[in-house]
């Protein structure tokens, strides 16, 4: 049920976001007899015109966009918190209680999301640059792209590890109702103890997710020119893959940590 709700949430959110470019493009096309099918015509004259002109027709500006990103991070944390809470040993028994839990941890989840994304980006960029440039003197000119490839692969690995750690922190925030710092300390201890099993569980699902989303994307691209409605359904349906895998991943985390965690008691009212 929680997973289903998360899928619906993602479908609605992505549909809402998608309506922004759809409106902007429609303003540029202005009643072209072929509709937006003209964007898939060979030559791409209208396609590039849309890419050039649509941004000036978009129904938002830079500041509202930034606000929308922040709000979306906050809002997206609610279904995720519900999923995490459902795997605790003392999972909320009512929807009211579940919503209380989700709302209670949402600010910390938002902060965590920003921290994790920043840390992942920096570690990826830093590792790629460090390995790439530091190895330059030791490789021939024709081979100098390879250190950057290796650096990028390492950077992806680090980013992946940060993602795992971030999820453990989230689990601690919900299951133990601790602050971000205390949860980080707990998470890194858990990660050290069960790193192998956690890595296998995460990597397997990440690969499966990447494969599923790639297939989905290819299917959408193939359907778009002739069957846009079917493509739209597939687009929205694609969201169920990462949600299901994410849910399964938190289940694996709960099992690995021995289901010791309990969902902390949260009250909607602040204590005096």
């Amino acid at each position, binding site marked *: 049920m929680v997973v289903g709700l998360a899928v619906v949430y993602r479908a609605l959110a992505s549909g809402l976001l998608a309506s922004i470019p759809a409106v902007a493009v429609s303003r540029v096309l*202005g*009643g072209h*007899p072929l509709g*937006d099918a003209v964007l898939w015509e060979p030559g791409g004259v209208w396609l*590039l*015109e849309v890419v050039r002109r649509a941004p000036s027709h978009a129904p938002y500006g830079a500041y509202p966009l930034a606000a929308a990103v922040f709000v979306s*991070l906050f809002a*997206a944390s609610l279904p995720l918190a519900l999923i995490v809470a459902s795997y605790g040993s003392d999972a909320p028994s009512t929807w009211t209680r579940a919503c209380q839990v989700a709302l209670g941890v949402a600010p910390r989840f938002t902060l965590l999301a920003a921290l994790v994304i920043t840390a992942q980006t920096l570690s990826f960029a830093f590792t790629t640059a460090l390995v790439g440039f530091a190895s330059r003197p030791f490789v021939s000119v024709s081979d100098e792209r390879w250190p950057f490839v290796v650096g990028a692969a390492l950077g992806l690995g680090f980013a992946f590890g940060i993602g795992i750690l971030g999820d453990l922190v989230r689990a601690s925030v919900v299951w133990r109702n601790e602050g971000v710092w205390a949860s980080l300390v707990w998470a890194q201890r858990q990660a050290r103890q069960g790193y192998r099993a956690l890595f296998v569980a995460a990597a397997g699902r990440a690969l499966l997710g990447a494969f599923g989303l790639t297939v989905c994307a290819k299917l959408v691209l193939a359907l778009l020119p002739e069957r846009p409605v079917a493509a739209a359904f597939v*687009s929205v349906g694609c969201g169920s893959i990462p949600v299901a895998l994410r849910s399964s991943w938190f289940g694996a985390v709960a099992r690995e940590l021995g289901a010791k965690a309990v969902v902390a008691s949260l009250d909607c009212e602040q204590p005096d």
Partner: protein
Amino acid sequence: MLVAAIEVTSFAAAPPSDPPLATLARAETAAGQGVASYELYAELDAETHRIRGKGVIRWRNASSVPQRELWLHAYLNAFKDERTRLMRRGEPDGFRGGTSLGHHGSLEVHRLRARELDAELWGGVTYGEEDDETDVRVPLPREVAPGESLTLDVEFTASLPSVMLRTGYAGRFHMVAQWFPKLARLEPDGRWAHFSLDRFSEFYADFGDYDVTIDVPEAFLVGATGAPVGDLSEGGRRRVRFIAPRVHEFAFAAWDGFEEVRQLAGGVELVALFPKGEGEEADLELDVATRALAHFAERYGPYPYRRLTLVRPPREAAEAGGMEYPTLITTGASTRFRAVGLRSIEAITVHELAHQWFYGLLATNEHRYPYLDEGLTSYAELEVMERFWPGNSGFDGFGFRVSEEAAYRIAAADAEGRGRVDRASSEFADGHAYGGLVYARMATTLRTLARVYGEERMQRALGVYARVHRFSHPRPMDLVAAVKAEVGEAAAVALTAAVEGGSVDVRLDGWESHPDAGGGFVGTVSLRREGAVVLPVEVDVRSARGSVTRLRWDGVGEQGILPWRGDAPMASVLVDPDDRILLDARLEGRASGGPKTTPRVWALAACLAQLGASIVWP
């Protein structure tokens, strides 16, 4: 003949006399009718990146006016310090060339002696402008009459800069261009076309015969203008002699990291020099060059030389890539671009190859009229790319197919309102204006004329232009005359208006239909045109029953009202349905009556949102 008079100059470090080579050289240049010919010996020091040069320049006063001076270009002096005209221009902002040099370059002339005048000339030189020694005036002790020739003995040292703007070194790779004292072109009316080298300026020179011996470390491979007629290794050095008849520039690349592949293409030997590990790119370039060579020969007359060298610089010398010299081009881009659907390697190769005609054989004044070479070359590039990869010549991936001319159209549209296309290269404010106007807008103008007035007529016009002015120095009026003769007066007027900075914007002003007495429907389509460029335009009217009627407006005036008759009410209207008027910067307002929804865009955006959410959302 001039070539018959070429003497074998003796150099202190020159290879021993080689009669068969001399014979070959004479045979190669027998057709030469050069005004400025060069016989040079260049010794490259790969450690200091200097070239010690010696030789003879033969010049003939081909004008109708006696001359009391010569003008020489010493282009390498543009990199001498931060005060030169080129370096003062600063950040190119949107075009090639950085602003900082790891190592400066220069051209130091030690000797310039005129045999016929029995005079050393270099002592009296002055420069075209303060702080810039690229434009050199050489006073003569007496007048040189029309038809009279001078033989100039020259000695010089060229110090290459770290690679910047086409020339220089990176590690042991050397792209040696604009490296010797070079005579400016003397126009028929007796005026010298000389200039200080500017950030966006290229070059201009007379045709001549080049006989250049290049002396490099033994492990180096050399690619150069012309064709080799001798290759001698001795004492750890390698001397390769190149003969290049009827060209107006000589450049060479030398490196011990090159690999080489050769291929024959319709009697022309193609030689690709490329860094180790980039054989795939080189093979692609050779394949594209082979096909494009045949295409250009058919369009613009045969390639008249026996060899074409393609140099692919290493990545750290990418600035040297994407440049043209007679019979030698430098390429660029990587197969990684292909992996994402871009045809960058193909486009660069085709573009530089097209320069063999629009620069190499039609040696226009690139400084004064940069659009004549870059604009026509870009047009030729677009035409070939579209012929080879119709509808997807620029990009093919993710279900989208984009032609190069659509991409050029965007650049041309962005450059609208930035002034005249026909400015001198020194008059462009920044690289965006230069690239957008000279390359994109000129090419898009010509493509528009071809699409509006007919591909065949335009091909004929440029074919005539290229053949008539081969081995000469055409001017803008020659291009306009060819378009006028083969395409028509209206096209020539539109071309002139466009290069003067004119634009065109055609929009749908309104449409209506109603039943007529005969049981059918009648109506009108109202169009509005703005801008100085006048072009005929087509309109497709679709009736409610699906039948399509094509209407035509000559484009004259600000408004056109076109009558329509159909079997059902009008359902939709589309102006310029075949996208012929690529020069129109705004497509909005061209259509009406079609669907207002965009389900495909919505589905695609939703899919991207889902993918994005999976990566960045918590």
